[in-house]
């Protein structure tokens, strides 16, 4: 492994984050606060409890997931798409580094950013509701794995995208609906039976459920299944990226 190169890419990507630190920091804090005002207070005051958890607290894991997933995808896809768009990807392609090192640098930085944002949201949330974490280790594991796997997915989107519209397309048309319908704001036991079955095809359900289990000790689906789902998704993304670099798809003529 060429660790110097990995660290160089990582630092350059993080530098972009610090340059826009204020907006990176303020926008998740603001949007989380808005969710709490609207869902937690205005609507939540009319919903007492879901599965024995106060509604305001119940939505926290889903909210964190929502932000972490969208941030991971947008950070990582932009990170690799930008050099492609500007043209300075030539430098990465002609450097003495392999695909693992490129991915480690870009995805590592993107995951770090979203991990940071996830933490900021958790802190903001704890200002609004009483949060207890029953399985802190599992909580961290789910958070880190989610950051990592969706940053990998974002990396793939960034390589696939041929223009800025396409860069927005997958997050907008696929990821946002999946996250919103993935039980971020409700328990799937609240759905009619048919939809409960259909919803199980949504991978985000497993993430939100596992993450929520780490907080409140209860889940829509078995925790082990959640872990397998996120682990499998991560491996699938690594596989796709390996194939991309092997064939040069969309990056190397």
């Amino acid at each position: 492994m060429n660790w110097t190169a990995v660290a160089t890419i990582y630092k350059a990507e993080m530098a972009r984050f610090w340059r826009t630190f204020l907006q990176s920091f303020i926008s998740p804090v603001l949007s989380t606060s808005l969710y709490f005002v609207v869902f937690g207070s205005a609507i939540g005051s009319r919903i007492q409890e879901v599965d024995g958890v106060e509604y305001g607290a119940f939505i926290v894991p889903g909210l964190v997931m929502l932000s972490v997933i969208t941030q991971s995808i947008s950070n990582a896809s932009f990170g690799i798409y930008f050099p492609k768009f500007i043209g300075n990807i030539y430098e990465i392609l002609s450097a003495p580094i392999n695909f693992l090192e490129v991915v480690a640098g870009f995805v590592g930085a993107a995951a770090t950013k979203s991990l940071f944002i996830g933490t900021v949201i958790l802190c903001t949330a704890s200002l609004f509701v009483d949060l207890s974490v029953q399985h802190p280790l599992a909580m961290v594991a789910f958070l880190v794995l989610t950051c990592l796997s969706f940053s990998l997915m974002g990396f793939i989107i960034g390589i696939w995208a041929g223009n800025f519209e396409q860069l927005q397309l997958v997050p907008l048309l696929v990821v946002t609906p999946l996250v919103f319908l993935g039980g971020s704001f409700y328990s799937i036991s609240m759905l009619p039976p048919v939809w409960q079955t259909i919803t199980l095809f949504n991978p985000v359900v497993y993430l939100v459920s596992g993450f929520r289990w780490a907080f409140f000790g209860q889940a829509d689906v078995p925790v082990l299944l959640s872990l397998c789902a996120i682990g499998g998704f991560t491996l699938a993304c690594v596989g796709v990226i390996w194939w991309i670099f092997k064939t040069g798809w969309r990056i190397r003529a």
Partner: protein
Amino acid sequence: MAAILSIRDLRKTYDGGFQALKGVSLEIEEGEILALLGPNGAGKTTLISTICGITTATSGVVSVGGFDNVGQFRQARALIGLVPQEITLEPFTKVLDTVTFSRGLFGKPADPALVEEVLRKLSLWEKRDSRIMDLSGGMKRRVLIAKALAHEPRILFLDEPTAGVDVELRKDMWEIVWELKADGVTIILTTHYIEEAEAIADRVGVITGGELLLVEEKEQLMARMGQKQLEVQLTAPVEVIPAALAQHNLQIVNGGDALLYTYDTRAERTGITTLLNDVAEAGLVLADVQTRESSLEDIFVGLVSAGAASEDAA
């Protein structure tokens, strides 16, 4: 001198079926400046991209300093610095940061003193804290060169370093190239400016239609292909070439005011003395004589059009 870069039968066919390289073989010696001359779309950039690993070759072997550029890509690429044709720089980064980045990307430990030296050499040190977007086009090109030099490459590729650059800056670029050569860096540059190849190259390769037509010492090429012309200006115009001068294959130019004599610089006897004697004997009075040498450009146009003609015939 040993070959630092060896290319054997390199072929590249793009997905669309376009054959950009049709079996290029080339040996480049350490420390030389090789100019690859060719019209737009000749395959110059594809050749460079394939050597550097940006494009995957369809077939053929490239060895850089003895390392295969695919199997031993780490060692091979570490020796190469690439300056691309287009200005491809992140607009918001600072000069010092982007050059430092390039060094790190190649796995070299940080070396601020070396980066400073590179920046000073390229007159960029004063601009080290400027953002790329605040630099002039010429400065941006220098930054690209600085980035390529930051990891101390032994071979530097310059892909059309002076395309769209004003005369002043072009001269500066040439100076930089000479200095690098003095430092022992092997330089391969592509250009479609003949005078550039003529001015700075040790050897010239002519590439067109994905084929390397020839690679030769610049002087040899010019001597081999070069013809000199002698223009004999007359005090009184002639309409036909006098019979006494028939053996010299003269042309009437300037509406009869001058006769043009073409001769070979390699020949033992240029025939000028005989010609001038014959001119005097034919009763013509000389007003002036002038000689001119064919430039690399004439040679190049001749080669490329010959190449195109043989392709049409095939």
